[in-house]
């Protein structure tokens, strides 16, 4: 129908965005990959190609693999805890009122409040949590003192000074900052679930937990899936929080060094090895894409219509 005007619309609508995207995004990533095949150190206009040397080097680089393992740990902790909390909170808000069907009182206030961490710049969150974990006058220390202990007794050298705990400490800060966003997402998704289904379920004798598992979850599955992928990629690439809270990955015997902080130091602290750093970036890029695909595959479910 109306094939005439069709192509005109398509062309005018697609082209500007595509041009902008190609010029700034696609070409810069492409060049980034290009640099990964060189030994460029950032001060000269020319560069020398070295083939796959950088990649071979990375394969043998113990510090790189350590960083990868740290990312893997974060990849397990952060999505699970964040989405778990987000789902839980969203459910409580949506259906935590009296009975199992109503929204909890003050839901609107909760929704606004819980989203708040999202508007705080990540750098500030990092600084803030550094003070939370501090051994002198820190919030955690203050709380522990109320129950008769203190943070250094519970965690020798403090959460951010102890190589065994620093990654977890940072993960908690990441969770704190992200839960609100995903909670809002789930709230919206849940608001689309019709009331009758819950009523029917409770008629059948299902309690909150059962109706969550069998009504809510399946119907918002695609949102959960998207959220998971988004969060997983974000965790892979996350830089700011880790960098602030661990001196760009070096604190606590590099206990929290991740790929992005190691990349940063490679490019800017270790004699400007931009070529090597770009190789790391390229590998991270491939990893992100692979991660997205794998996550997608693993969590694929039949979409339910209601």
């Amino acid at each position, binding site marked *: 129908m109306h094939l005439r005007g069709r192509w005109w619309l398509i062309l005018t609508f697609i082209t500007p965005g595509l041009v902008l995207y190609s010029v700034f995004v696609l070409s810069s990533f492409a060049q980034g990959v290009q640099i990964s095949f060189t030994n460029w150190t950032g001060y000269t206009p020319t560069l020398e190609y070295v083939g796959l040397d950088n990649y071979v080097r990375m394969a043998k680089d113990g510090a790189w693999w350590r960083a990868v393992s740290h990312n893997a740990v974060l990849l397990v902790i952060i999505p699970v805890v964040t989405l778990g909390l987000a789902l839980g909170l969203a459910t409580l808000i949506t259906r935590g009122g009296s009975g199992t069907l109503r929204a909890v009182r003050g839901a609107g206030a909760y929704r606004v409040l819980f989203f708040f961490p999202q508007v705080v710049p990540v750098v500030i969150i990092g600084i803030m949590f550094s003070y939370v974990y501090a051994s002198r006058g820190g919030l955690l220390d203050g709380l522990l003192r109320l129950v008769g202990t203190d943070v250094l007794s519970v965690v020798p050298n403090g959460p951010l000074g102890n190589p065994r705990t620093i990654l977890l400490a940072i993960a908690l800060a990441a969770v704190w900052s992200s839960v609100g966003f995903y909670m809002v997402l789930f709230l919206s998704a849940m608001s689309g679930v019709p009331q009758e289904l819950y009523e029917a379920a409770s008629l059948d004798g299902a309690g909150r937990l059962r109706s969550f598992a069998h009504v809510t979850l399946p119907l918002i599955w695609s949102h959960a899936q998207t959220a998971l992928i988004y969060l997983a990629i974000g965790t892979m690439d996350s830089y700011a929080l880790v960098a602030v809270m661990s001196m*760009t990955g070096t604190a606590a*015997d590099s206990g929290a060094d991740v790929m992005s902080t190691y990349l940063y130091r490679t490019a800017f602290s270790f004699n400007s090895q931009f070529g090597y750093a770009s190789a790391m970036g390229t590998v991270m890029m491939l990893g992100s894409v692979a991660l997205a695909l794998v996550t997608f595959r693993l969590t694929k479910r039949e979409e339910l219509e209601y």
Partner: protein
Amino acid sequence: MSVENCPTPVPSSHSSSFHRPTRRGLLGLAGALGAAGLSACATSGAPGAGAAAGSSDGGGAETSPENPFGIAGGELKAFVFDGGGGVPHLDLTEKLLEEKHPDLAADIVRTEDLSTLQPQFVNGTPPDLFQNSGAGALDITSLVANSQLASLEDLMAAPSWDDPEITVEESLNPGVREAGTVDGTLVGLNTVQYAWALWHDAALLEEKGWEAPTTWDELMSLSAEIKDEGIFPFAFTGQHANYPEEGLLQPLVAKIGGQEVWKSIDNLEEGAWQQDAVREAAEALLQLRTDELILPGVAQMTHIQSQTAWLNHEAMFIPVGAWLENEMKSAIPEGFRMTAAALPSPDPALADLTPNNPGSGWYVPEGAANAPAALEFLRAMLSKESARNYAELSNSVTMVAGAHEDQQLSEAFTTVTEMIERSNAVEPWQVVKYPTWYPAMAEETRAALISLLLDDLDVDGFLSRCQKAADRTAADDAIAKQTR
């Protein structure tokens, strides 16, 4: 654009021993990232980026003792690191320059982030002069490797500002040449003395009736007494591992086995880290942990936080550089008498020796448009008047010989100058270079040191970690090697 996890860079570690430690990495990223791209890329075409480079050549006039570089007007474009305090001392230097060369227009740009200069190098339009500090500092080794820095021999050979009878080099304290030499060429002028000291509060010592220790044994027995009084003997920043390394390990090893030990380590000699001197030093430092002499919680403390704790008398001794007073100015309690002293050593002969790294490096790019003006600026800066002015404004000591002889600034300042004098009287300190040459290796050795001091690494573990790092560096062909 992703709503969350917008990647934001963050403070880098204080990794260079020359630079006044800062928490600037955040900004360092930007500038450093401001590096331009590839000429291989299709869009290359170099419109000039950032600030315009230096201007017309101002040389060509007759040289004379008053005008050794033959300047005849023109412009000078310089970039200086400004950590937030302004750089007021340069006003005087500019004035001196102006008086001597009224037709020379100097434009000194103060910036927090030197890495913004990187594109200028790539485009071939660098400034005439820059002062390389802060976390955005440029990588000098790379610049030298690419022949982008000019030699400063002419400056060294020129007549000094105050006394035309002696050369600039002669007017300076020893160590400047070594500090500024990279790969055999003298490219950097390091004007400020960043000496490391073990600081304490003289008032607190007196109050408790204690004597400042001069030998290691005295230090240890005093520490036991201090501990009994409920104060921890030691504090330092566990987040910036270069502090305990430069402030404790370096001097201790040098005092036990001589400075040659560090030389062999710098030169990546086989088994250098396993030498007896290093082992003994490690054992001595381990005792700090096993005797519980270190303030708990330092592992998480930044330099400011550990220094604050020290100012509150939670700890007695803290290893920091000569900048301590300036850095903590607004937080020093009444009656606190900051005193700098060299780290006590087992061998009393070397007791006064302390690391004394000339820092705050100035460099002249090879492509500078007005190099003579740059050299003249530096010459003016090395005048006694400039040096004294600098000391007054920043409580820091310069490398200009005799400039601070009778300067009465603060008590702390005096203790620093005296400490430096005594150290120079023992022998000149040779800067330990491996952290600059092999930053990845230094990251590992420093992490191992922190582990030794605060976690559960033992001496053998420490030595083997350091040695492994050195061996890896030596075996890696991708890393350019240097020696001294």
